[in-house]
């Protein structure tokens, strides 16, 4: 079997942080090569180097037996390297056809009908059923991916890089995507498949390379490796599972009575005890996110009552909620959680600023520094550089920074909205451990998640949500997963 791509000793440095240490990667023709590793392991950087988006500092790249010198995005396309990102890189207002033909050499004056016909041909050979005249913004995430794949095929791509391709897909869409990938393989196209999700690796890939801290720690044939071995390679040691102890105390810190914010939240009542982890599980879009926003005062409630430590409250803004000792770690890190172009330190102290002052307005800078160092160490944020700009951190460390930011406010009630989406296994286990520690220290946690296994494992009790309502309460026990899944996925129209 010949290699279509060989990367040898590739090194990469961002400012003063080494991201890749002499990484080797060999990809076979017409096969799926999975690239796994935790957030920050260097997977994305390696792929972007191959796709010509970052120049490499050192190392050799051989494509189709030919050594490649300077590799920029244009050259990469010329060599048959294509990359499909997590968020598709399409022009949303242009039609499917225009997007597919974007990379092609066209006549200066474009004949629209001809454009549509050519795009239809490309889609037909690929076997995709899409309306080429539709603007891309009307498509689902999966359909957008198909457009990207069609675009890549039309550019004679031999090596297709896919980054977290299934993050936004449903199960049937995922199956379809995998069928598409297998078909690409038959046409001799190699796929480099970047993922966190190990079952996918074992379902799809022929070989797997594990990156850890910027180094290739092993490439294995799928038939010769077990999932446990891959996890060990990723993490660098055997995993010990965090366990959660059930709280005994019945000390109510938060009570909701018939809280509604239509149409997403419909008459939710719940009670949260001191030192308890209360899980709120349900399929994505069942109203957990909106419930969290109502409790935190981001959205106003239509009706209902809320009590914090027995006192009735009505939050108009998040700052009211923060004053009552509530914190919300939101789902959308980049949109709602962090200041991407501000340094880590300033991000961490942001909600705590009012407590770091002398005479209300002037900041106590030494106290601030202490808080930042404290939180960085507490949550083991890497690299531990408080002046580093937030967007330069990996996803897992951004998530830790977001948690650090809210723990610094010393909340009584911590609401976590999907805290482990897109997070690698080790950081995930670390966060789970942190959550149970916090609960033991007396903090009350409200965990919103569509990962039922996660809520059942971590929580003392789990409330299941469906269509904005709480439909069932279960004990926090992973054995209940089948039952929970059955309840949340019931179709109410039946």
């Amino acid at each position: 079997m010949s290699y279509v791509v060989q990367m040898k000793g590739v090194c990469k440095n961002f400012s003063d942080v080494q991201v890749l240490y002499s990484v080797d990667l060999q990809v076979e023709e017409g096969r799926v090569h999975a690239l796994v590793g935790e957030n920050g392991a260097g997977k994305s950087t390696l792929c972007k180097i191959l796709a010509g988006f970052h120049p490499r500092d050192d190392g050799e790249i051989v494509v189709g037996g030919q050594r490649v010198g300077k590799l920029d995005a244009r050259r990469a396309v010329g060599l048959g390297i294509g990359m499909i990102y997590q968020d598709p890189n399409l022009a949303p207002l242009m039609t499917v056809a225009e997007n597919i033909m974007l990379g092609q050499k066209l006549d200066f004056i474009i004949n629209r009908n001809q454009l549509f016909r050519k795009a239809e041909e490309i889609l037909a050979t690929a076997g995709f059923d899409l309306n080429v005249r539709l603007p891309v913004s009307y498509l689902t995430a999966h359909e957008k991916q198909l457009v990207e794949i069609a675009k890549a095929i039309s550019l004679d791509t031999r090596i297709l890089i896919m980054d977290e391709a299934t993050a936004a897909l449903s199960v049937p869409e995922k199956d379809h995507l995998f069928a598409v990938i297998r078909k690409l393989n038959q046409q001799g196209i190699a796929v480099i498949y970047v993922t966190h999700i190990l079952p996918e690796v074992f379902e799809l890939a022929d070989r797997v390379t594990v990156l850890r801290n910027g180094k290739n720690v092993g490439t294995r044939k799928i038939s010769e490796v077990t999932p446990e071995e891959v996890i060990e390679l990723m993490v660098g040691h055997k995993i010990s599972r965090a366990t959660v102890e059930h709280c005994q105390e019945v000390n109510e810190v938060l009570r909701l009575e018939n809280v509604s914010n239509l149409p997403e939240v419909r008459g939710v009542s719940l009670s949260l005890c001191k030192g308890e982890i209360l899980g709120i599980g349900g399929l994505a879009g069942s109203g957990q996110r909106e419930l969290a926003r109502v409790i935190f005062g981001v959205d106003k409630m239509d009706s209902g009552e809320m009590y914090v430590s027995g006192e009735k409250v009505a939050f108009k803004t998040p700052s009211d909620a923060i004053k009552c000792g509530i914190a919300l770690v939101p789902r959308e890190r980049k949109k709602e959680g962090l200041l991407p172009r501000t340094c880590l330190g300033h991000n961490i102290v942001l909600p705590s600023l009012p407590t770091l002052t002398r005479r209300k307005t002037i900041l106590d800078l030494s106290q601030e520094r202490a808080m930042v160092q404290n939180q960085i160490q507490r949550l083991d944020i890497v690299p531990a550089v408080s002046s580093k700009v937030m967007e330069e951190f990996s996803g897992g460390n951004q998530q830790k920074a977001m948690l650090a930011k809210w723990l610094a406010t010393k909340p009584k009630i911590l609401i976590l909205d999907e805290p482990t989406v897109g997070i690698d296994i080790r950081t995930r286990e670390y966060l789970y451990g942190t959550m149970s520690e916090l609960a033991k220290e007396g903090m009350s946690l409200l965990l919103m998640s569509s990962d039922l296994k996660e809520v059942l494992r971590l929580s003392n009790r789990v409330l299941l949500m469906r269509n904005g309502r709480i439909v069932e309460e279960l004990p926090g026990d992973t054995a209940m997963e089948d039952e929970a899944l059955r309840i949340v996925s019931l179709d109410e129209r039946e």
Partner: protein
Amino acid sequence: MKGSRLKTATIRERAPFAVGLLRNYVPWIVLVIVVVVFSLLAPGFLSVTNLMSILNAASIGGLMAIGLTFVLLAGGFDLSIAAIMLVGGMIFGTLFINLQLPVGAAVILSLAAATGLGLVNGLLVTRVKLPPFIATFATMFVYTGLSLAIGGGMAIYFVRGPFFSFLGQGKLGIMPMPAVIFIAVAIVAYLVLRTTTFGRAVYAVGGNDKAAHMAGINVDRIRLITYLISGFLCGLAALIYSARLEVANVVTATLAGYSTTLLDAISAVMIGGISIFGGVGKMHGLIGGILLVFVLSNGMGILAMTSAYHMLAKGLLIALAVGLDIYFRSGVSLRRRLRWDTLKQ
């Protein structure tokens, strides 16, 4: 695993010195080069008198640039700064000369009026939800029209008096009074941005308004206050302008300088590394930018270069400063860019 972790876990506050220097002081480095060039070419450029006159000239545009910086950092924009300055000057003139009000009252009322115009900008942005660029583009015309209406198209000439000799000709040691005011405001602005909750909130609002809101910051209030600051500093600039020229004049003196003042302030802000997308930029960079703009004007004036070269130089400088800024922030060091060539063969 523990061992490797410990190595990276030492907390560093800053990037290495040289990198930090290049990243944060691009305008200052260019300024030093420009100063060296002028001191070699232009006779008398380095004299104390000339340097003080540069500071003096920089004070009006500088005050406006500081106000604009607050607005930009909070993710807004203010095109009406020069127009507010016009109105401020005309109101001051009308109150003080035509209505014979005491100087103190005229100063306070005209500053209040300028701040009020900033408030209107702020309300248009935060309440009416106009995009800042459009809101202040509109008020730029409105305020300019207002200033013309106040004066009835006529200039107001001031009579020489103690106020003018203090503000216009007065000195603190060797430092002209406008420069003293400018430096004082710059220091206060630096401290406010660096060491107060308000300053951090300004950066947060410009950096990500949703996250700022979720962190308990009243986003609209912070934005509104930045427009107030901008209006107030334009009013202050107007007082210095009036005192220096002894004329609060729309038609002759000012309208010519009007667009120059606005563009000088915007140039200073851009060269100073204040992001027009909000949330990024430092006071020391801005001061470098302000000095650079006015050193350039002064030096080229001494060399009797025409305004054609002047504009050429300023445009190139903006492109250079912003380009260097992006280059140093891109995370690829010069050494590595050069090493790149070895890979090409």
